[in-house]
């Protein structure tokens, strides 16, 4: 039974990681419906940013977040303006362009670092809490906490603030939003930037756990897309629940079936959900099509 609870705990903590990684993508892909395959590369840049702060200024990665997140928000805004803005109505070209960005960013980092694996520690790295025989690592708990805070914050931001309402309005009907006096381009640019900034935050918080490599973004981005689609596009609660489903599935499949097949199991669950409920668990029916409606 202890084993079982340990697997559940591991799954919940992994789920927190996936939920955190998915929060930014949820805003970019779920709400404003831009396909960004390079989301994982922003996460990777977040990790390297934290490492840079650590190695040059001796910054603790958690403190480095205050520099890395704004920097990646800015970079995301630039990328939106130069690459995504001209392709607004062409989702398939967004697939290609963001895949190009993925290759570009990944290999620029590879060229600069020479592909040497790097890792770093914080005072929290070695700390584990044991509650009733079940172990929790402190760094993973921080991520779980950050996921809850980020998802809750994003939900409140979208629901309550003026700017959040503007983002939702633009996502629903671009022309009507424009007629109401919303600056559509600027709203998209900021949403994209916030989304990449959140990816950077996830990256920073992951640095104490994972060894840095230019390809690490790929480990998360497919899972993040699965989480966002699984939970229901644009639903913050859905992304959170989706994250835990993916995390628990991975932990259970890894422990009880075969570690090699855990990714296959996740995607089979993903495809099964799409079969039964194409709009995702918490999405509105037909939400998967609205964003593709041609807007002019």
């Amino acid at each position, binding site marked *: 039974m202890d084993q079982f609870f340990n697997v559940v705990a591991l799954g919940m903590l992994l789920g927190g990681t996936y939920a955190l990684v998915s929060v930014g993508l949820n805003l970019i892909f779920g709400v404003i419906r831009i396909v960004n395959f390079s989301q994982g590369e922003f996460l990777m840049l977040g990790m390297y940013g934290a490492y840079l702060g650590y190695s040059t200024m001796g910054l603790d990665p958690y403190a480095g977040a205050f520099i890395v997140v704004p920097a990646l928000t800015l970079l995301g805004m630039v990328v939106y303006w130069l690459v995504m803005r001209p392709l607004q109505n062409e989702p*398939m*070209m967004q697939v290609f362009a963001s895949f190009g960005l993925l*290759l570009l960013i990944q290999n620029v980092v590879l*060229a600069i670092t020479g*592909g040497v694996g790097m890792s770093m520690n914080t005072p929290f790295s070695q700390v584990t809490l044991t509650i009733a025989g079940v172990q929790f690592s402190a760094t993973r708990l921080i991520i779980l906490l950050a996921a809850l805070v980020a998802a809750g914050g994003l939900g409140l931001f979208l629901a309550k603030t003026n700017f959040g309402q503007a983002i939702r309005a633009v996502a629903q009907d671009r022309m009507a939003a424009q007629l109401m006096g919303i600056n559509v381009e600027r709203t998209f640019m900021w949403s994209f930037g916030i989304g990449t900034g959140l990816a950077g935050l996830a990256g920073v918080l992951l640095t104490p756990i994972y060894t840095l490599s*230019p390809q690490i973004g790929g480990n998360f981005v*497919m899972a993040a897309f699965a989480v966002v689609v699984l939970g229901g596009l644009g639903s913050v609660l859905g992304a959170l629940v989706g994250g835990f489903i993916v995390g628990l599935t991975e932990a259970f499949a890894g422990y009880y079936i075969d570690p090699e097949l855990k*990714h296959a199991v996740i995607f089979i669950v993903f*495809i099964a959900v*799409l079969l039964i409920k194409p709009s995702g668990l918490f999405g509105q029916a037909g939400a998967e099509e609205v964003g593709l409606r041609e807007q002019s």
Partner: protein
Amino acid sequence: MSNLDLAQSGALGDSRLAGRRGAAEVWTVANELPTFFAVVAAIGLAVYLLSNQFFYLNLLTMALLFGGLAVSWNIIGGFGGQFSIAHSVFFAIGAYTAGNLYKHFGVSPWIAILPAMLLSAAVAAIVSWPVFRLRGPFFAIATMALTEVAIAFAMHWKAVTGGASGLTIPYRAGLENMIFQQRWAYAALFLGYLAVTLLTSIVILRSRLGYYLQAVRDNDKAAEASGIPIMWTKLKGMAISAALTGIGGVFFMMYVRIVEPAGLLSLFDVGVKIALIALIGGIGTIYGPLLGALILVPLDYWLRAFMGSAVPGGNLIVLGLILVLGSLFMKKGVAGALRQVYRAWSRQQ
């Protein structure tokens, strides 16, 4: 919007040609054959001329393979507008079917083509049925997920794939084994493959299925309202496309004689590359994907040789840039750009 652009590159371009021969005449397969034979003959001549220059011959062989794969992809991706990045899965199915039948049962690869095609088409139909409920980028993401599943299974199922260390085929030269001593024979083999895919693609484009696929691509709601069975059309297109891709897998297996899951199912080196080649050449046109392969495959080799050695990942930096710039500024590919130039030129005349 993008759909309209695609429609112009395919359908309107051809109606212009048909119009010149009299408005009543419909462009048919017979009209396409002279160009087809000319293209195949020209490449055949190139194979003959290069038959002693192994480096260029290898380059041409790989370009012809990827040309054939991109032409196959184009049937569902270009005509049907369903951007699959899971074609590496069908490629791998073809390779493993031929490899295992040959290695364990002594079945000639020529005969293995048939089961490879059937298996690829069957898997394509089964996995596409749920995935085709998704549209546009959602479809692309789901096919990407399928690639991940396929890699996990290929790594796990060692009896068939040899796991991470790969599947090797013993070298026994002979026509019946599809293993040749002369390098030019492989180039000829892949030229044959390309010709088969091109011919299939021409026949489909000028058949009911081709028009159905284009209608679904351009506006699926209108297509459904006109009585076109959308799901059936997409499934048929996908199955044919996958079967042709599977043949490519068979030939590739006998050409390299060693395959491993990471290379065969690589998202970038196969799955995305096939789609990228079609994009660079011109999606939805007959010869665009071939053109893309003749440009991109040598470019890739060249970048690997010169950039890759100077800076780690340098070749991929350049390819990434091409991908971003291509999707921003050359949505209709080289074929589309050439057509524009030609149109501007003929207007001046």
